[in-house]
């Protein structure tokens, strides 16, 4: 299972713009590199990241806040940082998808005071 490191404040004031940072363990293998034995390492990329926010009183799949389509030029162990304007208490749902059936999901609660 992939490791992730998510840095989001657990609470924020209404209207405050917070920073979201996510880091995930993934080789982002380009398909151009060779192993030390000389064979080509097969392409294995993380393709898409999405961040949704599900308001506590609304439920459902929530709204799409931010998404990223990633390509081979993104560094290994992809890092993304973006912002979010806190409006209501709820949870972030972060999802990563990639080659070889890679799929990972994380949730984190944001309390708005």
């Amino acid at each position, binding site marked *: 299972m992939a*490791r*992730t*490191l998510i*840095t989001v404040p657990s609470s924020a004031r209404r209207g405050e713009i917070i920073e979201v*940072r996510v*880091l*995930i*363990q993934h*080789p*982002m293998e380009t398909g151009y590199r060779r192993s030390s034995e000389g064979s080509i390492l097969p392409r294995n990329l993380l393709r898409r990241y999405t961040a949704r926010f599900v308001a506590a009183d609304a439920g459902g799949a929530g709204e799409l806040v931010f998404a990223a389509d990633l390509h081979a030029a993104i*560094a*290994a*162990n992809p*890092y993304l940082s973006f912002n979010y304007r806190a409006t209501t208490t709820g949870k972030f749902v972060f999802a990563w998808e990639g080659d070889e059936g890679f799929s990972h999901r994380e949730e984190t609660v944001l309390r708005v005071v």
Partner: protein
Amino acid sequence: MTNYLLTLVLALVLALWSLHTSAQDPRRSSFDAMSPATQALQRDDSQNPAMLWVKEGEALWSRAPVSGTKSCADCHGGLSRMRGVATRYPAYDTSSSRVLNLGARINLCRTNHQGQPAWRTEDSARLSVEAAIALQSRGLPITPPAHPALKAAQQRGATLFASRIGQVDLSCADCHTTLAGKRLGGAKLPQAHPTGYPIYRLEWQSLGSLNRRLRSCLSAVRADASSFSDEEFVAIEAYLMQRANGMPLETPGVRP
């Protein structure tokens, strides 16, 4: 009163002396010569990719490898109990009568206390646990223990450090003592203090051990990794830690 004064004067003298020595200490971590962008990676845990491995290590610490066996935490308690441990390795281990680095010491517990096969040096699990343990000592000074067997290893390491190797016929000391601080091609030669291991090296795009770093240096001088036996590699590690005695540990370090 005189006692109090004496203490005060002593404290002052000590403070001045330590200031003086730190100003005089010519030893530098490679961190100092890194670009601001790479320094930022190490400084900020939320950006440091090595923290992904640390998180893995924390999980492994409290998980039994197979049911019926004990987890590291079952015997050792919380990871914070490992504070200071990484500053002392390599160290002499009485049970195996050998000088072991931290990774090998971890493996000893894994084989003897958990009945599991030893992890390979660059096994991601071993690096993860090692990083999680060493993080507990971040900021603490490197303090190699005093032991005759460790001392012998340090001396052996010092000799190897000064010996010329490889087709290029350079010693570690040529690059890391004589030429340290100078540029060799594009790279600035560091003093080679092993303050941040295991490190996340941008070149590797992953976490790696001090042993792997040393093998990279060997391949740079067109020497084979088999130029040194396992014991010799550990001896060099022991010498490098002695050479860095008193410098603060930075694990998990980031290096270009």
